[in-house]
């Protein structure tokens, strides 16, 4: 079941589930942690120190919306003092220029701003909030601050016709890096999958678009493109391998190998209020469960690619095959690949972008 555990390199700290946005592809669980159950500031400070001692270099402060925590600046200071590189993953609201200055002064290394599209109306529809104009304001403020900037555009069938406009936003900003990432089908995105999956033609065109953009902007903007894995021949090396590189802490302190691991029945997660990060990383059941190769079944067990993709994603295997230990069904070698092919075959040929947005999105109904 085990093998020596490598050091984690990144810690994802979900500081809160509170968020002013309600995106149709939100990756947070349906059952949100209440504010009263969120970890205290001092507990996070200890978690950061323990993470650095374990070998973690990168800290992602995320949520929910991390800006809703009023103690965010002190978190950044504590993380820097612990020797971590601090990423803020944010929607850009609620934020004003004064608070941005405070974040940078506290030692923030990298500001990662998410976009739901390039056009105000459709972007706001996706997140059910008037957020787009504020994001463009934040981009202007960032130009006069010294901090790394990445833009993160979340792609899907309804906004793949906006790639030119998205790239223009990036080129008019101070971002040195832009991620164009297709929605991954977990959580709310799984519920809305039929309206989000791109067509095969759209995908082919987007690949061509990004190849040209990467060539043209070499040395100016680093462009990363993440395709929807349903269209891939081999699975993604999810989280760089289970319990291999990344540790995620939920707002109430549960330590998980990934965002979605809660969908796997029977997995017990330890809480950082009761155990040290090292104990959890090295010996908790949840982190051991799919670490290494002993858990693998065929065709993974004897596959040449097993050290490259680690069998793909355990949560996707569970959601689509009913067993978390089976091969990720997006893999062309999986006996369950036909399930993915059937989903893709059901996508309409026309992307139907011109139509008004369907009223049938499933949204989170949190009270924010």
């Amino acid at each position, binding site marked *: 079941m085990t093998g020596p555990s490598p050091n984690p390199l990144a810690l994802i700290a979900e500081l809160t589930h509170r968020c002013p946005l309600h995106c149709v592809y939100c990756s947070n669980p349906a059952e949100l942690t209440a504010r009263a159950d969120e970890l205290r500031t001092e507990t996070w400070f200890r978690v950061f120190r323990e993470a650095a001692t374990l070998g973690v270099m990168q800290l992602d402060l995320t949520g929910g919306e991390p800006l809703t925590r009023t103690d965010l600046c002190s978190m950044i200071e504590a993380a820097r003092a612990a020797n971590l590189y601090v*990423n803020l993953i944010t929607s850009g609201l609620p934020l004003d220029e004064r608070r941005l200055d405070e974040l940078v002064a506290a030692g923030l*290394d*990298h500001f990662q701003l998410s976009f739901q599209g390039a056009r105000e109306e459709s972007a706001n529809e996706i997140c059910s909030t008037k957020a787009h104009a504020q994001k463009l304001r934040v981009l202007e403020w960032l130009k006069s601050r010294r901090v*790394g900037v990445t833009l993160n555009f979340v792609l899907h069938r309804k906004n793949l016709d906006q790639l030119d406009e998205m790239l223009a936003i990036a080129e008019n900003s101070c971002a040195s890096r832009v991620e164009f990432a297709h929605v991954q089908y977990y959580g709310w995105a799984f519920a809305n999958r039929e309206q989000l999956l791109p067509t095969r033609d759209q995908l082919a065109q987007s690949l061509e678009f990004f190849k040209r953009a990467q060539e043209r902007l070499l040395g100016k903007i680093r462009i990363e493109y993440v395709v929807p894995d349903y269209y891939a021949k081999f699975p993604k090396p999810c989280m760089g391998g289970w319990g291999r590189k990344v540790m995620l802490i939920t707002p109430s302190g549960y330590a998980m190998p990934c965002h979605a691991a809660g969908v796997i029945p029977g997995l017990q997660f330890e809480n950082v209020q009761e155990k040290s990060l090292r104990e959890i990383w090295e010996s908790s059941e949840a982190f051991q469960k799919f670490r290494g190769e002993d858990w693998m079944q065929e065709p993974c067990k004897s596959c040449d690619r097993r050290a490259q993709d680690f069998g793909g994603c355990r949560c996707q295997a569970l959601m689509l095959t009913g067993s978390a230990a089976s091969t990720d069904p997006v893999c062309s070698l999986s006996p369950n690949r036909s399930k993915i092919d059937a989903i893709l075959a059901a996508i309409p040929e026309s992307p139907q972008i011109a139509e008004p947005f369907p009223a049938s999105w499933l949204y989170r109904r949190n009270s924010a």
Partner: protein
Amino acid sequence: MSLDQNLRPQLAPGCRLGENQGLKVLLMPERALRLSGPSLEIVTRCDGKHSIAQLVSELQKLYSKAQPKKVEDDILGYLQLLHDQRALDFAP
């Protein structure tokens, strides 16, 4: 290589030197690069003060057993690589 020798390399915003488990690393958005030997000598001089010419000259002295031309080519190649990864800006 067509890099102007008067340019002064400087780590880009969001990139800085750090330490992990006693080893020097170049920390960048979503990644980190272990530094040792020549790569560490180069990156510590990417401070916006050293020109490329100065950087090359200092490393040629430091690695005096290596062929000077080889040292220069390796440095220019490495600077270009870091620049293309957006870890480095070239100030005039």
